[in-house]
């Protein structure tokens, strides 16, 4: 299964962090720092896999991809295929690109909520659920619509908005 998904910039600032086994907040930060330590020491144009046993425990590895100012990191175990994970990063980034129209770091920074929505449609509880970005976008759009619908009436008294939110 996939253990964690981390997006961080090239200075090591986390932009998105999702851990599929519970980790306390400080531990999350520590893990992110160690991952950054490993990634920042790697040259360009080398393979994208890193054995992560020392960071995430036995039988874990991570795959990362470097886009512009961002690292996309997936941590996974032996039930996943390395190249498939690489493809999955591609799917994730493509989806972001379509959702945000030419995604850049700022989109990731300011759309905390939406990032999670997108990620949750692709990976569910550590399992790969959807690999087609069109399907993901379809679901994300539905969810966003629903969110908006329930938010636009937020200043209307509760009794009225109650049924509309359904």
């Amino acid at each position: 299964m996939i253990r964690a998904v981390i997006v961080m910039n090239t200075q090591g600032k986390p932009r998105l962090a999702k851990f599929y086994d519970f980790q306390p907040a400080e531990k999350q930060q520590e893990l992110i720092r160690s991952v950054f330590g490993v990634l920042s020491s790697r040259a360009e144009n080398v393979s994208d896999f890193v054995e992560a046993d020392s960071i995430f425990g036995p039988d874990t590895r991570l795959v990362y991809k470097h886009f512009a100012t961002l690292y996309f990191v997936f941590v996974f175990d032996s039930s996943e295929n390395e190249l498939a994970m690489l493809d999955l990063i591609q799917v994730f980034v493509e989806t972001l690109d379509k959702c945000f129209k030419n995604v850049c770091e700022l989109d990731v920074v300011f759309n905390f909520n939406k990032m999670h929505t997108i990620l949750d449609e692709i990976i569910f509880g550590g399992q790969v659920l959807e690999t087609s970005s069109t399907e993901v976008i379809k679901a994300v759009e539905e969810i966003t619509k629903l969110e908006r619908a329930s938010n636009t009436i937020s200043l209307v008294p509760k009794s009225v908005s109650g049924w509309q939110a359904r």
Partner: protein
Amino acid sequence: MTTSLIMETLFQRSLEDMIKGIRLQVIGESKFIAKAVEEIRREIKSTDVHTKSIALQKLTYLNSIHGIDISWASFHVVEVMSSTRFAQKKIGYLAASQSFHEDTDVILLITNQLRKDLTSTNEYEVGLALECLSVIATADLARDLTPEIFTLLSSSKTFVKKKSISVILKIFSKYPDAARIVFKRLVGNLENSDPQVMSAAVGVFCELASRDAGSYLPLAPDFYKILVDSKNNWVLIKVLKIFCKLAPLEPRLANRVIVPICELMRKTGAKSLMFECIRTVVTSFTEHESAVKLAVEKILEFLVNDDPNLKYLGLRALSILGPRLIWPVLENKEVVIKCLSDADPNIKVESLKLVMGMVSESNVAEISRVLVNYALKSDPEFANEILGSVLSTCSRNLYEIIVDFDWYLSLLGEISRNPYCQQGEEIAYQLVDIGLRVRDVRPELVRVGRDLLIDPALLGNPFLHRILSASAWVSGEYVEFSKNPFELMEALLQPRTSLLPPLIRAVYIQSAFKVLIFCLHSYLRLSGVIASSADDLAAGISDLASERECPQGSDLAKCEAAAACEQDERFFPIGSNRAVNDIAVQDGGERILSHEAPSISVEKRSFTHESICYLLNLVNMALGPLLGSDEVEVQERARNIRGLVELVQQELPNCVPIKEGSVEMEEPKASVMIKLIHDAFSKELGPVSVNAQERVQIPDGLMLKENLSDLDTICGDILVPESSSFSLGSNRRGDRDGSSFFDQQIKEESELSTESTSLLAQHRKRHGLYYLPAEKNDIRSNDFPLVNEPQSAGCSIDGVDDLVKLTEQTVVSKKKPNAKPRPVVVKLDDGDEIPASLMQPINSKDNLLSGAVREILLGDEPIPTTMRSNPSEKSSGKRRVKEVSLNSEHASLLKQNAGDVGNLSHGTSSSRRSKNRSHGKERHRSPKRNDVGKEENSQKAKQKSGHRHGRHKTRERGDGSSMVAQTPVIPDFLL
């Protein structure tokens, strides 16, 4: 109140505002965040859910990105989760899955909320609840919500269905009994026409099978069908992973699946799928030569690819194959070695592993030399990688592949000098370990140790301190091989040793102590004060000169022996003659001293009165400042030596006239002491098995688990003196009394029973029998300064010596003429392997789950939720019943024509036949029959897969029966 609410809402900072704020801070970020949290603390208490949810959203952001603790807000999370508005609910769920865990107390409150959302008509609300559950489910939640999940599994909406399938994995891991309810529906989804749903189900089974493959063996036909039919690479990868786990459990499976796997490998354009095929073949199907050949072909394609990822994975695949089949590695040797100089660290490490896998007895020297030289040129990290793997490969199985230990020791010396070397600990361990295990190589060991010790440059490198410590230890322990003990002493006491950490300094001082004792003893012996050791010496010389030649020191030893004999004769002609005559009679005992021969030239040259005086002064000077050291180990040892030196210095003037005077004179105090200490030091230390303690048999009538409370009253007076003698014993290593006390101590500790003292005495009499029973090679392997059992060590060494004599010639004749014989490496019978008790225990939860799964797969119908008393018993009982019925069926089938069961439907006919076959196999256990069965089986599989198309309804039943049919077969592998 309302106004303030509106104000609050209007003026509340949104998440975006907060992020902007944080980004504006150049230095005071943490201060800004602290302020924001304060603000949130206020806002989150608001009665307005909107304000509250925005506050929670900000908090979740801070938690996720800036690591702020939000456990204090968990109740607010529950409140926001229960909002009726989707956007707010979503915020609540995100916060929950981000921050809730097993120990969150409010998790008890959300069961109903989750239930409500799971049964919601809005599929996205269901999705939120499922997502949250997949992360935070506890045993209670899983149990309480299983019925809802069960309902969702038959949902018509793909969006909900795939998520509810995936969540099962978490449910099973927390509440295995859920399998009794939902497992059948989960299996049903393997044939779902919706690819997304099927993919989710396969994913779940892949995870389940990776934990406990055996339970899912009955589903192999379903997986096979997917393997053949599916076009989705993601699904195929998962199915391959499942077969990778199943194949070792069911040998017949390989024949069936290998064809489609090879087909996939040939046809697919997707590298990920191809790699998975390769990995499956090289992991689980190495017996299928053609498949392996194909896989190796594809691996080569990966290896020559420019993409570093593919190159790396190709090497990975080779290293999976390496331990079992070496030819694919050798075939691609050149590519692999070329990868060693690749820019990519992963590729370098992988190819290094492969190169080390190719190492054998004949090429170890060559490969190691090349690699060690290469390490000098490469970057520090990889250099250490290289050195580490050279060290571990060479020391594998007690230096199995090392023939020439002199070479290996010089290699160790070379590695230590590598400027990047950080392998100090390992090298130190090996130096000492070789010293203990390989007696023939000790002269070379001392030489290498000396070279390291006298190099003052090495003292400055903290990574080498451990090596220096080991060198100091071996130099002290085997000082008798030293060509120049004085030089050694100078090295041990050189001023730069102050750079060493105190504990290593203590080792240095202790070694200096041993060297000093050796020098004094040699001096006194040569000057005739200790007459008795002349016998030892002479015996040792002739022993060595006649039969036991140390590889390195042999030339030296021969001429030295001659010289020493001359010298001996000069000093005590009678004594030495007598001794030579006596050799034949007493040659057994003196092995330890036999090694002293090489140093005799040194003795002749340098053990004069002046040199000894110089030595004593040197020690005094060097240790003087250490008497005030604040490190107790250093101070104590320094004081010990100083004490001895003072004693010797008082008596030394008296010694000199003795040499010139008559030998008859009474021995002075100091020389008696020196002789005693020297004898203590010259007891040999050997390795001891880590399991030695376990082999101590518990004597009859000893109750280890008995209550020990009244022990003090009975044994109190005995134990106190005992423990004090223990410390004495361990101080004086090798001292026979000391160690036997030590053993008693151990024994009594284990023995702490309520028996009377007389019983203790009885045990004491027998204790020699418990520790390290009759085996010859029982020696310690842990750490060097350990108290040894003199008896057993001695006996093992005798055995080894005999072995040396026996094997030496045969080894020589076998080897190339210029090759030296491999010295004997002391081994322990049971090795140093980890006791079986430390093997990884199987997770009890997995056991529960597999019990439940098997019950469902092997049983006819799922058992309702009731708790079962003993799963394994029940299922086995069931199986027995089935077997009986099958037997009768089998008998009736035998009467009929076995193949002709035309009146049955296809599904059942094949299942019948499989029953029939399996029983046949059980009766006549001929291998031929098995093979026939395999073929039949694969044919049948093809048939089956052909028939399965487009009859989903009937399949379910047919499948069920085929699963049942397999039941009598499967348990054979599983139980």
